[in-house]
């Protein structure tokens, strides 16, 4: 999608003027999209970028003439190849969808029907629309699988969705979208749920196929570096309005608006590394497995110094979350031991005393599921105070107010429910709950992954300040290298249950790397529009050389 020079752009395919969309919550309509203009030429790729709630997905769906349940398009025009999608009847739109406009969703696992084979789902639209007969459609699908670089393209379609990996499924969904050779594809965060190492392959495959078939696309994401690889033009959205729009290279090199500049600047947070020999927690030769069959942790040894941050990185399935479960006692290790403040830690949760439990706290990835929706902030933060320190009544409320203050939130939030807070505020409450116990260690499991970049930075800054104030140690589990750069003192790289490399940040992030660390680091998208092209060229050269 990127090689701007050779790209032939045709006439205008999609024209959206002054689009206004409202959403319904609790019976009240409030604006989500407040007058957005957008035009897309044939064969062009437009990147829509913005934080959650900016209205990107809503606009993407509106480009198909579709409004989600609970949303309504109230004003504006949507012209697709001369067809007015707002005036078109449901029947007409259904004929367009799938055959001329296709949609690739964020979670392929949720979008595929688990009861049918991949090939049947890939060809379904083409066959039902009568574009081609089944035999031809299957042959075409195999060809698409090959172009998308799926392994064993002739037979992979015979599998069921759960029998292939997430990255493969995402590419199969792209093949499904391509099966009728649509004029327009909407990609809605197609790689957000994937690991960085997988993301590279999927991005490359999508980019190639869109280019080969000269398909126009809208690429929706919150990741700037990703959109820089995919899009010809980028539109930045915020609160349902356009902030600015420019060709990709221009947008990256000279953003005009302040908001865009802050988005660009986010990744500059970096904490100076500091090492220490005062180890508070040490994991020694630990093995662990679920139901005794598969070894999820294999001879893991790592140490956490007092008042420092150790980042555990790796892709999903590398065992990093299992390590957290072993340390907290949720999953007793099958071999090895854990030393905490120099003393062996009981293996199982119910053998640990209250004081030990207090000293090891945990913050979860999703504040939505880690805060009980039926408890007020007062109860959530107050409970550890009451439970560990026996603080009650007015004294407890005072302490809760202090904690709210330390996470930079107002005392007035004390009677709110978690559902009444934003994502970042909820994560702050999780932090305050952990702090209330006055722990030695906080295990942070992907605590910023679900947040927008600006909010991420605020949370990371807050965590670092709190570390300085309370000398707490963080075991920071993440797959995001940018986060690691920002806050870690030491890094542990994990792959398939083993520790591949560990050491101070400066040592791990700088070459020479072991092969896996190299793969992991090189797969992290950069804010350079040529990054993907160069990376693929480098990797191809490496393969040819080997």
């Amino acid at each position: 999608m990127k090689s701007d020079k050779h790209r032939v752009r045709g006439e205008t395919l999609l024209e959206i003027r002054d689009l206004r969309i409202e959403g319904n919550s609790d019976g009240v309509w409030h604006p989500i999209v407040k007058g957005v203009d957008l035009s897309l030429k044939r064969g062009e790729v437009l990147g829509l970028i913005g934080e959650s709630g900016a209205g990107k997905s809503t606009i993407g769906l509106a480009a198909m003439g579709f409004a989600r349940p609970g949303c309504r398009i109230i004003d504006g025009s949507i012209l697709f190849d001369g067809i007015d999608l707002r005036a078109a009847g449901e029947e007409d739109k259904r004929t367009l969808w799938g055959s001329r406009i296709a949609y690739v969703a964020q979670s392929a696992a949720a979008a595929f029907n688990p009861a049918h084979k991949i090939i049947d789902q890939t060809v379904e639209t083409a066959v039902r629309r009568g574009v081609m007969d089944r035999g031809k459609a299957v042959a075409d699908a195999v060809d698409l699988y090959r172009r998308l670089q799926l392994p064993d393209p002739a037979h992979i379609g015979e599998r069921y969705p759960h029998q292939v990996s997430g990255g493969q499924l995402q590419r199969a969904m792209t093949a499904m979208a391509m099966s009728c050779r649509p004029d327009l594809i909407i990609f809605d965060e197609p790689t957000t749920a994937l690991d960085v190492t997988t993301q590279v392959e999927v991005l490359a495959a999508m980019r190639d196929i869109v280019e080969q078939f000269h398909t126009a696309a809208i690429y929706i994401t919150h990741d700037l570096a990703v959109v820089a690889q995919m899009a010809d033009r980028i539109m930045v959205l915020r609160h349902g309005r356009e902030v600015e729009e420019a060709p990709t290279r221009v947008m990256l090199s000279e953003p005009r608006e302040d908001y865009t500049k802050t988005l660009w600047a986010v990744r500059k947070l970096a904490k100076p590394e500091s090492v220490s020999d005062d180890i508070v927690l040490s994991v020694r030769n630990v093995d662990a497995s679920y139901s005794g069959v598969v070894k999820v942790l294999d001879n893991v040894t790592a140490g956490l110094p007092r008042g420092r941050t150790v980042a555990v990185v790796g892709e999903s399935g590398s065992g990093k979350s299992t390590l957290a479960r072993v340390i907290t006692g949720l999953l007793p290790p099958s071999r090895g031991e854990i030393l905490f403040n120099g003393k062996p830690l009981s293996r199982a949760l119910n053998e640990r005393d209250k004081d030990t439990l207090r000293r090891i706290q945990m913050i979860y990835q999703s504040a939505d599921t880690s805060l009980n929706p039926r408890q007020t902030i007062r109860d959530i933060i107050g409970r550890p105070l009451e439970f560990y320190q026996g603080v009650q009544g007015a004294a407890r409320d005072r302490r809760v107010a202090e904690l709210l203050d330390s996470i930079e939130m107002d005392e007035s939030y004390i009677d709110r429910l978690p559902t009444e807070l934003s994502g970042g505020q909820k994560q702050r409450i999780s932090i305050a709950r952990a702090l209330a116990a006055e722990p030695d260690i906080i295990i942070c499991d992907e605590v910023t992954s679900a947040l927008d970049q600006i909010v991420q930075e605020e949370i990371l800054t807050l965590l670092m300040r709190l570390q300085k104030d309370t000398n707490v140690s963080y075991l920071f589990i993440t797959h995001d290298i940018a986060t690691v750069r920002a806050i870690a003192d030491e890094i542990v790289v994990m792959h398939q249950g083993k520790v591949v490399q560990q050491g101070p940040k400066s040592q791990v992030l700088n070459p020479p790397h072991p092969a896996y660390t190299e793969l992991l680091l090189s797969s992290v998208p950069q804010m350079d529009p040529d990054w993907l092209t160069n990376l693929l060229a480098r990797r191809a050269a490496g393969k040819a050389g080997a």
Partner: protein
Amino acid sequence: MTAQAPQLRQVRARRSLWESTRRTLSSAPFSAWFGMIVILLYVIAAVFAPWIAPYGEAEIVGKAYQPPGPEFWFGTDQIGRDLLSRLIYGARNTIGIAFMTTLLSFAVGGTLGVLTALKRGWLDQGISRVVDAFLAIPVLIFALMLLAVFGKSIVNLILILALLDSTRVFRLARATALNVVVMDYVEAAKLRGEGMGWIIFKEVLPNILPPLITEFGLRFCFVFLTISALSFLGVGIQPPTADWGSMVAESKTLITFPVRTFPWIPAPFYPAIAIALLTVAINFVVDWFLHKTSGLRDEV
């Protein structure tokens, strides 16, 4: 929050309890209002029976089978007791016992359901299989058998029906709790070192309350239908205590008698209508509540 932090969601002060109740009620459909008013009337009749009823519960005040008239609005039964008074006292007995039974079955079934969902393993297997065995036997026959074994008393009736009913509550509580126990906040509570009581009643239960409350309404209907059925069969609430089921049984011979006087309704139908009306009323309210809490939206 720092200055540049975008306020993603407008935070508004929570409505007071009164305010939110008023808003909820004002949006209730006609059927729900009808149901609520009927239930309220029944509750008033049940609570204030001695003051409302014109005669005593077992007082013989007239001749047998007197037709409705100014003295006895609904007529008298086979030994000359006022039917209206017995209907009002019957509300007290039937509803009271059904309420106690349902409450007990929820306490047992709900607690065990959440506990097994949390613990899983052999405890879950054990209790679930026993419950399956209980569910395989029809309630009425099982209840008849147990009442025959343990004797016909109100306490036995409550205990036996609560036990049988708790199996169904257990099923629902376990199934809904399974979705909640995997949440991180439950894990967080375990990591904090909380006891089972706290986790069940403070972390899990509040989150499965809506389906349980709905089920409470429905189970209550079934329980008092069962009690009425048992009383009709003669093993439930014993005479002279007034009860709708036994009242139907006592005057069932009248069904075949031609009725010539106003309001042309044979006597056994009064308690039957009382039973039917309450069942319908509860179902209306439950339907509305279920719709409200299911998250279904009325599309525009």
